């Protein structure tokens, strides 16, 4: 089938409408206006009209955003100095804060908050609302915003990136065009910025092709499982913050929980589970359900009602895992570039700052008319010289220490915080899926035997998925591409017990009876909440997450 494609010419193309790219788009419009104002006064040539487009795979801006979130306002303040009065959707300033180390029934409060966990001056926000608001600001400033258009392929010319192809629409499940088939469009641009968030599907293609990670450690990730609860009373004030470590995660599993108070008697609660655990039967959703049965949480949520569910991965490797951020015609920012500070569990402020710095570099490139790495490469340095660089550098050994188990992690982390990140040497790190250990012959342990779903406090996966309001057109090819199904039924069952069934928080992967005593992998792709865990944690790295038809996926509100 040869497909005729239209081309849309832009100057700057931002892929992914997250805080990184929306900050980039908004800042660009301001910098361009300021430059043109200056050139009017000095009589030099202003920039021609600069066409900026943002494409986003979700049906609405913000619908695929899921975060904690406690926002460090440092960079939002720089982007929109008067953000409170301009109507930024903030839940509340952070108020009372607690950190506990949990055992199955008990809790030990940490008497002093470790500095990375101190949140005075920060705000509890819903990232999904904040993103929506930034999207409106961008649109008002003249940025073209295109929800429902995922980028599916990078376009190159002689090794330089010249834009992105968007996904075809109207393909049926056998791969043939339907009557309303709408081919994807080639959007060309002088600069393409990938701000696709964690484990970006285009970023993955680009980094592999151009070997942008040649000098860095493999990225490591955590996945956050989150629910919103509506409470009957004001028991947990907006802005209240609890973090916990320890139970229910075992000592080989990195992670911890958060509980944040939102407006309107809503409690935001979640558990981050390191995607470098050992036991292949670990199920982050189940760990989270168990977590809620701890007396501290059970009491807190008693009488409340589940109203939302979702999950999303985050990159936590930090400094040593950052790829090269630029190449000819292209830049990578935000979570796609691994700019999240894993020690503080914060990436919104670094994403916004990176977007702003990228905008500065793009304006320089537009003025010079040079979009090669010679000009764009300044961004790599600018970022490292900014607070983003110094934050990430300070935390550079944080996850690497946990890589060796929790106790080692806690001790080295303590030393590391006290010494500003200085450890005797750089700790080595390996990719998360390589930590998963193989099953011993005839190993049958049911980690979750004691876990019951009472539909009040604890919910099975399918019920939870309902609360993510996820939707995909069923008549399309699955967007989880498994390179070799034979590995699933044979080798993986034996070696790891098909962990995809456990790590996927949305019940997408199911080993089902294929008759004649055989089993096969069924992919319920329409449940997928786009968390990217399978792409990350599959021990054979044969699952490739690609964007489904535009608009498909979760519809997160207030997450």
């Amino acid at each position, binding site marked *: 089938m040869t497909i005729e494609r*239209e081309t849309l010419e832009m100057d700057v193309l931002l892929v992914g409408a997250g805080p990184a790219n929306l900050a980039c788009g908004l800042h660009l419009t301001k910098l361009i206006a300021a430059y043109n104002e200056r050139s009017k006064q000095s009589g030099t040539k202003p920039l021609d009209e600069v066409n900026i487009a943002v494409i986003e795979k979700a049906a609405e801006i913000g619908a695929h955003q899921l975060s904690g979130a406690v926002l460090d306002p440092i960079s939002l303040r720089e982007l929109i100095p008067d953000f409170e009065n301009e109507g930024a959707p903030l839940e509340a300033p952070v108020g009372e804060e607690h950190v506990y180390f949990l055992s199955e029934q008990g809790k030990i409060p940490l008497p002093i908050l470790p500095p990375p966990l101190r949140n005075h001056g920060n705000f509890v926000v819903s990232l999904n609302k904040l993103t929506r608001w930034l999207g409106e600001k961008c649109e008002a400033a003249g940025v*073209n915003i295109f929800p429902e258009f995922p980028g599916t392929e990078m376009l190159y010319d002689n090794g330089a990136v010249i834009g992105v192809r*968007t996904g075809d629409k109207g393909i049926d499940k056998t791969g043939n065009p339907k009557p309303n088939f*709408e081919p994807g*469009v080639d*959007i060309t641009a002088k600069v393409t910025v990938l701000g696709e968030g964690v484990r970006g599907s285009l970023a993955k293609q680009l980094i592999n092709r151009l070997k942008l990670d040649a000098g860095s450690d493999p990225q490591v990730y955590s996945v956050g499982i989150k629910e919103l609860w509506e409470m009957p009373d004001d028991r947990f004030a907006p802005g209240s913050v609890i973090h916990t470590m320890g139970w229910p995660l075992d000592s080989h599993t990195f992670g911890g929980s958060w509980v944040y108070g939102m407006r309107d008697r809503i409690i935001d609660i979640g558990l981050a589970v390191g995607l470098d655990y050992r036991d292949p039967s670990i199920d982050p959703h189940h760990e989270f359900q168990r977590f809620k049965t701890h007396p501290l949480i059970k009491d807190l949520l008693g009488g409340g009602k589940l109203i939302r569910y979702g999950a999303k991965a985050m990159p936590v490797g930090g400094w040593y895992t950052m790829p090269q951020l630029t190449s000819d015609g292209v830049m990578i920012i935000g979570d796609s570039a691994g700019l999240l500070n894993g020690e503080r569990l914060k990436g919104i402020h670094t994403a916004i700052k990176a977007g702003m710095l990228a905008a500065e570099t793009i304006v320089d490139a537009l003025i010079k008319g040079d979009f090669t790495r010679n000009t764009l490469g300044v961004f790599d340095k600018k970022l490292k010289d900014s607070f983003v660089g110094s934050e990430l550098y300070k935390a550079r050994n944080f996850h690497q220490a946990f890589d060796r188990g929790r106790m080692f992690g806690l001790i080295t982390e303590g030393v590391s915080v006290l010494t500003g990140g200085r450890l005797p040497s750089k700790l080595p790190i390996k990719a998360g899926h390589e930590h998963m250990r193989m099953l011993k012959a005839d190993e049958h342990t049911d980690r979750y035997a004691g876990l019951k779903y009472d539909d009040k406090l604890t919910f099975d996966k399918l019920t939870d998925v309902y609360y993510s309001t996820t939707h995909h057109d069923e008549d399309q090819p699955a967007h989880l591409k498994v390179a070799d199904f034979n590995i699933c039924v044979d080798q993986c069952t034996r070696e790891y017990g098909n962990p995809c069934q456990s790590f996927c928080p949305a019940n997408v992967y199911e080993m089902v009876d294929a008759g004649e005593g055989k089993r096969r992998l069924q992919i319920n792709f329409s449940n997928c909440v786009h968390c990217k865990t399978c792409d990350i944690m599959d021990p054979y790295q044969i699952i490739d997450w690609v964007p489904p038809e535009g608009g498909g996926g979760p519809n997160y509100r207030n997450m």
Partner: protein
Amino acid sequence: MNIVVCLKQVPKKDSILRIGSDGKWIDERDISYEMSEADAYALEEALRQKEKHGGEVIVVSLGPERARQSIKEALAKGADRAIHLFDSVFDTATDSAAVARAISAALKDEKYDLILTGLQSDDYGFAQVGLIVAEQLGLPSATIVMEVQPEDSAVRVKRELESGWFQWVRLPMPALLTIQSGINQLRYATLKGIMAAKKKEIREVKAADIGLTSDDLKPGQVIERAYLPEKTKRTEFIEGKPAEAAAKLVEKLRFDARVI
């Protein structure tokens, strides 16, 4: 041929609904909205007719500011211009008659051959706005329309009746048709369409602009209470041979539980 399409924005299907604090409607915070399904088919039909016969497609929507999103979607798909009835005075217009009065008033000076509406909206499901508009504008109308064939000054339409029966009727134009979901295949908005939509007119109309006051928009009918279906558990054993029991089960699922 000029076609007016009436469209309404409704909460997205599969939304998690909560009842508002007044107990009379849902809590509208934190839910997403979309074009009501049947209206989307009405729009698609209008665009297809325009592609065949030329003319203009004008969309009309009464709703709060967020309704602009659905209006823009219609323009991106190919409608030519839009009228947005947007005024706090319209907030009280919650029954079909009041909404229809506003739409009819807004269309008074428009030239059209057809007015299309969805069969019924996905939220209230009254299925009446279109018919009342037709009455107020003195137009012939047909409901549950499955196919539209314009002729010189008339339009032939196929209507869906009960149990697989259809009916063809001919109406003089201008006429109003209420469109059944699924009569065509919806198109996708294209990037170029979205860009082009930015330059299209969305005329905001206030009640006073069309000579209406809040008295004209008083609803004759109000919602007393909104509540989620109350769950009751009932267990029933179906006796008989497996094949018979299965048939009975299917029947129950279809007609009692209405799940298949």
